[in-house]
């Protein structure tokens, strides 16, 4: 098409249209805003044409799905072959309660598991630690030892279902518990599949569940990379996450840039240790947010794939899989409203659709009640059904990258890539990712964006339905999840029983061996596995590492 009409003809015609036709039209119908922009503050034009993508030639910039630079997808046939994994992030109360929720979700057609841990677990504390007060099971499940892990996955075939675990500071310990549990059931390490989040950089930047300082944290992460490709080959040893960066208030461009920047940082750290990039890179995975601006989100995922492939190639990756940016998506929790919670179903549908049109490998859809509490059974079922409707009824899965070739989408994809490289330069100028964290660069950038978003909402420049427009005088209440109040007591009794009944000399021996190894430079995974196999608790194992590595303290910036 563009070849038949020359670019010059299009340019001329566009000018005429703009000058004569459009100008007249907006005199009669003035535009609603003086400026249209997306959530990354990128100005959006009235229309996009072949002129906007004239510098990108198809074969180099896009190519075919499954081929470099993977703009259109990492798999040649994408959802025509296999649908994305429907993976609802879930966890609350005790391991028994959460196990019931998993059985419920799997019974309703969920195809993968995703574990939410409570705060004490995320910080490597047992349920009976003083700092765990009030937090048991509140925003995830409490896992203090292998006993809890056994209960969590009771009756779930670990060789058939893959599990994603949102755990960072204590990731090697929780992963070791998962491996140990499988081994105790006679399932070998090579057979289990899943993901540990294990992304500490975004913890310093945004999510803030860090334990150790950057250097030992990076060492632990590289330990898991190495152990993973050697022993647990189907496991994704990291999920490099933009989700939390976005939830903390970043723009889509910042999410994209900071996440991929973190990714490159991990690759460099592992290479510095002497690992070969094509050994560990195929098991790096990503995790993005799906926020409100539909096309911006789709462009973000597409740009991420191309940037990652180019960066990995530049770092020397040769294997196809090393170049793949495979990702999980979760719809934006921060976009949900406590007001008129049912309308969140509509927000989630649009966000989920963006993720699918962006080619996600797995997806979590938020439940309508999550601005109020953890999801009820009904709310989470509707969220899962939302994915099933997109997958089975909407027809968007019939072809790969259906929006590829849209002038707007391609232009926006290029634009987001361009903005990402500007951030890469700024971070490099600050000395790299970790120095930039220490200088508060990312934290400040995110806080600025978050504040601006809030201001625009408060001033009603940004309309949030049900919040600053179309409000109800009286809000109807919806039923909220109730947790078993006896759960905490039961968990603490279980922990105390474990501590008296296990072979404590064995526990002690393994903890001491871990302590010694942590002071040296061996891979810590085998030592950690010994600890959890002997039923050392999460808190005990983590304390050994706390003693050796110290704890990270951040400087609060607002």
């Amino acid at each position, binding site marked *: 098409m563009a070849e038949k009409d020359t670019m010059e003809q299009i340019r001329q015609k566009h000018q005429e249209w703009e000058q004569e036709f459009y100008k007249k039209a907006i005199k009669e119908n003035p535009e609603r805003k003086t400026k249209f922009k997306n959530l990354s503050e990128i100005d959006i034009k009235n229309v996009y044409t072949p002129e906007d993508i004239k510098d990108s030639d198809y074969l180099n910039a896009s190519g075919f799905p499954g081929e470099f630079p993977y703009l259109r997808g990492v798999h040649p046939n994408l959802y025509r072959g296999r649908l994305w994994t429907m993976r609802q992030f879930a966890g609350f109360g005790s391991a028994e309660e959460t196990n019931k929720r998993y059985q419920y979700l799997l019974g309703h057609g969920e195809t993968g598991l995703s574990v939410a841990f409570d*705060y*004490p677990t*995320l*910080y490597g*504390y047992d349920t009976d630690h003083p*700092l*765990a*007060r*009030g*937090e048991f099971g*509140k*925003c995830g499940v409490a896992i203090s030892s292998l006993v809890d892990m056994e209960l969590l996955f009771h009756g779930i075939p670990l060789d058939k279902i893959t599990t994603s675990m949102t755990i960072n500071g204590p990731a090697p310990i929780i992963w070791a518990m998962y491996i140990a549990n499988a081994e105790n059931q006679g399932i070998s390490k090579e057979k289990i599949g899943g993901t540990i989040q294990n992304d500490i950089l975004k*913890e310093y930047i945004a*999510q*803030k*569940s860090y334990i150790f300082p950057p250097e030992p944290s990076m060492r632990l992460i590289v330990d898991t990379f190495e152990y993973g490709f050697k022993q647990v080959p189907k496991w994704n040893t990291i999920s490099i996450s933009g989700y939390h960066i976005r*939830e*903390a*208030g970043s723009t889509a461009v910042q999410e994209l840039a900071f996440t991929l920047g973190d990714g490159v940082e991990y690759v460099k750290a592992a290479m510095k240790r002497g690992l070969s990039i094509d050994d560990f890179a195929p098991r790096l995975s990503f995790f993005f947010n799906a926020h409100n601006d539909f096309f911006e989100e789709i462009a973000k995922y597409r740009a991420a794939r191309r940037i990652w492939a180019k960066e990995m190639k530049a770092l020397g990756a040769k294997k196809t899989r090393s170049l793949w940016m495979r990702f999980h998506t979760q719809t934006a929790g*921060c976009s*949900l*409203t*406590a*007001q008129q919670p049912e309308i969140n179903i509509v927000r989630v549908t649009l966000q989920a659709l963006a993720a699918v049109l962006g080619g996600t490998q797995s997806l979590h859809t938020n439940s309508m009640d999550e*601005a*109020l*509490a*953890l999801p009820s059974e009904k709310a989470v079922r509707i969220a899962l059904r939302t994915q099933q409707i997109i997958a089975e009824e909407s027809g968007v899965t019939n072809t790969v990258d259906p929006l590829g070739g849209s002038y707007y989408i391609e232009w926006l994809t290029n634009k987001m890539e361009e903005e990402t490289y500007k951030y890469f330069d700024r971070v490099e100028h600050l000395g790299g990712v970790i120095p930039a964290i220490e200088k508060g660069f990312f934290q400040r950038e995110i*806080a600025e964006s*978050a*504040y601006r978003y*809030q201001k625009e*909402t*408060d001033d009603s420049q940004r309309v*949030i339905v*049900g*919040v*600053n427009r179309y409000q109800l005088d009286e809000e109807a*209440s919806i039923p*909220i999840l109730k947790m078993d109040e006896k759960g905490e007591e039961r968990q603490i009794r279980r922990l105390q029983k474990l501590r008296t009944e296990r072979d404590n000399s064995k526990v002690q021996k393994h903890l001491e061996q871990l302590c010694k190894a942590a002071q040296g430079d061996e891979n810590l995974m085998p030592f950690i596995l010994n600890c959890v196999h002997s039923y050392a608790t999460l808190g005990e194992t983590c304390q050994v590492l706390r003693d050796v590595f110290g704890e990270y303290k*951040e*400087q*609060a*910036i*607002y």
Partner: protein
Amino acid sequence: MVKKIRVLVAKPGLDGHDRGAKIVARALRDAGMEVVYTGLHQTAEQIVNTAMQEDVDVVGLSLLSGAHMTLFVDVAVSMKEKKMDDVLIIGGGIIPQEDVPGLKKAGIAEVFGPGTPVEEIVNYIKKNVKR
């Protein structure tokens, strides 16, 4: 010169969600108040001590982990014990409506949920500050 209202914005417990706390801290500062932000991972005891040392008029607690019935109440009880009755305590975060009466009974004067314009918090403080 009118004395500026002094506010402590605090994050009790292990919750790392600090987007709201930081936005509120900045908005209160922009509204002319003196703001101290504790940073993350504070115990109730640490928060109360900071409130005393900084001689604040208002303590604003932010929590999204669901542990508010324990941690907000811990702060309120401890402040009562220390006779800090003239300090206004407010809270915000992911807090179901049904928990609000219990929090108010414990001494949290008002609870602000998601979607609250920051100006509402500013006005509330100006109207209700006790000293």
